[in-house]
């Protein structure tokens, strides 16, 4: 996460940080169904969050297909149990995944309870939002020109 985000945590980061505190989990991530990290909280130093997000999204999509095959719309929770680390993934808004990594399996009940609670809070604030002023800034012709120059420079034939 960059410095701006670390200094000015938004409401989503706040929810995930509280979730970490209440559940005793190690790491929390909010991931889009396209496989991008939206927000992260807790310790991420041991984790490649970009790769994790891509894999979790793939896993969740595959599970959704499995759900359809057995006549369900989706499975709202995925639990992966390891020897020392475990992952609890819950579906938010049908388009995002909240990933919680925790170490003490005895706490699974607490993790599930707190994850559900945080999920409800996220559901209430994660309506599609667009910040028009920033959106305009990104789509300016100058932005495109810079981006095209970067692309030409980076992908020179080698």
């Amino acid at each position, binding site marked *: *996460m*960059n410095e*701006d*985000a670390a200094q000015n*945590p*938004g409401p*989503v*980061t706040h929810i995930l940080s509280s979730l970490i505190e209440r559940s005793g989990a190690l790491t929390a991530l909010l991931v*889009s*169904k*396209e*496989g*991008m*990290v*939206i*927000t992260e909280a807790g310790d991420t130093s041991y984790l*490649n969050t*970009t*790769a994790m997000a*891509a*894999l979790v999204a*793939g896993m969740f*999509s*595959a599970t959704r*297909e499995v759900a359809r095959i057995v006549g369900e719309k989706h499975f709202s929770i995925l639990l992966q149990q390891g020897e020392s680390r475990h992952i609890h993934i819950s579906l938010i808004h049908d388009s995002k995944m909240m990933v919680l990594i925790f170490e003490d399996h005895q706490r699974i009940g607490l993790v599930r309870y707190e994850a559900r609670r945080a999920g409800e809070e996220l559901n209430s604030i994660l309506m599609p939002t*667009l*910040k028009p002023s*920033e*959106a*305009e*800034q*990104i*789509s300016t012709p100058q*932005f*495109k020109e*810079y*981006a*095209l120059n*970067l*692309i*030409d420079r*980076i*992908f*020179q*034939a*080698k």
Partner: protein
Amino acid sequence: MPHINYESKELAFKMVYYGPGLSGKTTNLVYIHKALEAGRRGDIITLDTEEERTLFFDFFPLDLGRIGGYNIRLHMYTVPGQVYYEASRRLILDGADGIVFVADSQQDRLNENVNSFRMLQENLGDYGVNWKEFPLVLQYNKRDLADILPLGTLEGQLGLNGIPVLEAVAIAGTGVMETIRVASREVIERFQM
């Protein structure tokens, strides 16, 4: 529509390499990954079978740089080419911002190319995307082999008018960087909020 994270100031575009089995999608991705300076690329993830055929997807994140306070990234994916992995292909296309269709230039692979492209049209249609209005690039790979399809064959059969077409020998890196350059330019040029 790219993924924008206002909190961490990131803008990420999803690029997907699509095409029939063994056409060279992973080879393209691996070459790009190796050719980039280390600071621009994240680790590559490959989910393949014992026979080195892509099972689910290959992936790596690529940093283009910073513009207007935003980190601009490409998330590079391949899909599995084999016909029976249709479900995986469709899932990975979800949210794609641009596609490179990697065709196998060998004459006897014409039907596989055509069928794969039709499946791509169908998969995009499932997401409400009209491929004719979508950033799409056609790469004829394996141009070093004998008995190859003349350029124009697939465009003619599939009605691909006006899409960028490139030739490549991905295993030697020929045409690989040019393909991703053209494909990412298409994505940026059509990008609108």
